[in-house]
Structures are given as C-alpha cells and as structure tokens.
C-alpha cells in the first residue's frame, strides 16, 4: 500500500476544511467574521488559515467581503436580491380578471396534477402559456 506523504495529508485536510467551511457559511443568512468562524470550529484553527480560505472563496465567487470585517455567501446575497426583484416585478404587474368555465379549470388542474414534468407552477401559469402560444400562432 502506498504511503501518504505529509504534504498530501496537509492538502487533503485543507481541502476538507474548505469544503466544511463553505458548507457552514453558504446558507448562513447573517454576515459573519473570522472571529465568529474561529469560535465555531470544533478543532483549533488559526485566524490566518480561515482568512486564507475566505480569500480563496472570494476569488471563486462563493462569498463576498461586505467591509473590513464581515463576509456573506454569494448564494444568500443572490437569494435576497432575487426575492426583492420578484416582489418588485409582481407589484408592477396590473391584472385583469377573466371569467372562465369551471369545467376548463378542472381540466387544467387535472393536467397539472398528472403531468408535473410540464413545469407549470399553477393554473394561471398554464393559461398565460396557452394565450401566448395562440397569439404566436395567429401572428
């Protein structure tokens, strides 16, 4: 059996540490600093080591530096941005009501239930798609 060199063990441990760190911080809603991460590590890890890994993660685009102390995961930041964006889009859309036979709505609901793979979110989503398709056809 091949002997694992000290260098390889170090690289392996480092890779493992980085994976664990990103797993811990990528869904974290609150900004975090190095001091917080040092306290959360089960084994003693130096501030410098955490700082180095955070710098790598910044370069990889997985986290961003908010100021001199605090960091936040890009995923959380994107989620917040998208939430605001969707909210804004929704509030800007003006709706009109349309009266449709219940029989047709029942058939749509049945389709959504039987074929979720079509990807319609709800009946209104299906109706919008149907309208757009017919409009395209009539052009």
């Amino acid at each position, binding site marked *: 059996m091949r002997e694992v060199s000290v260098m390889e063990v170090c690289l392996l441990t480092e890779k493992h540490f980085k994976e664990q760190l990103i797993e811990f911080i990528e869904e974290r809603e609150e900004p975090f600093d190095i001091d917080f991460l040092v306290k959360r590590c089960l084994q003693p890890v130096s501030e410098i080591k955490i700082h180095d890994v955070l710098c790598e993660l910044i370069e990889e685009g997985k986290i961003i530096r908010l100021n001199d102390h605090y960091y936040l995961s890009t995923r959380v930041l994107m989620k917040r941005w998208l939430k605001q964006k969707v909210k804004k889009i929704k509030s800007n*859309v*003006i*709706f*009109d*009501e*349309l*009266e*449709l*036979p*219940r*029989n*047709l*709505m029942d*058939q*749509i609901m*049945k*389709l959504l239930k*039987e*074929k979720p793979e*079509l990807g319609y979110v709800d*009946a*209104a989503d*299906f*109706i*919008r*798609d*149907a*309208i*757009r*398709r*017919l*409009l395209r056809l*009539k052009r």
Partner: protein
Amino acid sequence: MPKTIAKAEAEYVFVKIPKSLLDEVDKAVGKHGYRSRTEFVKDAIRSLLREYGMYKSEKE
C-alpha cells in the same frame, strides 16, 4: 335564491391575467373573428389541453 343563478355562479371561476397580455388578446380578437377576449382565451386553453392530450369537450 333561484337555483339556476346559484348553479350558473358555480360553473364559472375568475382568473387573474396580466393586463398587458390581455391587451394583446384584445388586438387579436377582432382580427381573427373571436367575439370576445374570453372566447379567445378559452380557445387557447382548449388548444393547449388538446396538445397535451387532456381536452374533453363539454358535451362528453
């Protein structure tokens, strides 16, 4: 309350559609021989249901 009215109300549901999309429908309505936007939307729904093999006419 007369039963027929109650029945008629139960047979229809209101759906919210973006106004911008219905404006496009309004433009197409007269041009393609539909009597109203509702008729156009019903036709659109039936066509797509048919495409997915799910449409059953009211007579069935």
